[in-house]
């Protein structure tokens, strides 16, 4: 059973399109995150949610909108995709903010 699962694994789309990435965790964690990994492998926090409430929005363009329908799910919707949005997006979860974070397998987004 995968602890943190994201879909899709690969996403290729044209500029200007809108797309969503879904994330689910079965660990019973209260906190979930979205991270962006760029071409240089740098991992940058985008959003964090605790008990379905947005805690951190790390200066992400408002074209990115996370939604947490319940504590086990955190989805990411991206409007008007741009070339610079191409990256690998990781969902993660943790019990507390200073305990192990479990990452999903990532979604490789390519905007053409």
């Amino acid at each position, binding site marked *: 059973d995968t602890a943190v699962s994201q879909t899709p694994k690969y996403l290729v789309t044209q500029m200007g399109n809108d797309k969503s990435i879904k994330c689910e965790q079965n660990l019973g964690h209260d906190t979930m*995150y979205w991270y962006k990994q760029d071409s240089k492998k740098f*991992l940058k926090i985008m959003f*964090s949610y605790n008990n379905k409430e947005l805690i951190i929005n790390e200066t992400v363009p408002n074209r990115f909108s996370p939604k947490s329908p319940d504590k086990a799910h955190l989805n990411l919707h991206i409007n008007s995709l741009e070339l610079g949005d191409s990256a690998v997006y990781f969902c*993660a979860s943790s019990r507390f*903010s*200073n305990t*192990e974070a479990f*990452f999903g397998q990532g979604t490789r987004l390519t905007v053409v």
Partner: protein
Amino acid sequence: QQQVKQSPQSLIVQKGGISIINCAYENTAFDYFPWYQQFPGKGPALLIAIRPDVSEKKEGRFTISFNKSAKQFSLHIMDSQPGDSATYFCAASSSQGTYKYIFGTGTRLKVLA
């Protein structure tokens, strides 16, 4: 103050050698320091972690050394194996409600057979 600085950017080690990766932080509110290992096409996975109340933690071939006064911590991989070839990230987080892990820039390790 939120940065975690990691070095080196890349590292090549012979099989059986010792790999050492260093990290430094500034924010004294950080109280959890994990190391993550990432293989190509996979998500980062926790390798080992330490809290500031101890100066060293060892799990198998992997050891974290922690220097609270210098605000530095390092990962030592003993008897490095080709299967250890991956990208390693140090990170830091705080229990004070910040809800984020700050990652270092990563070290690409290659262990030669």
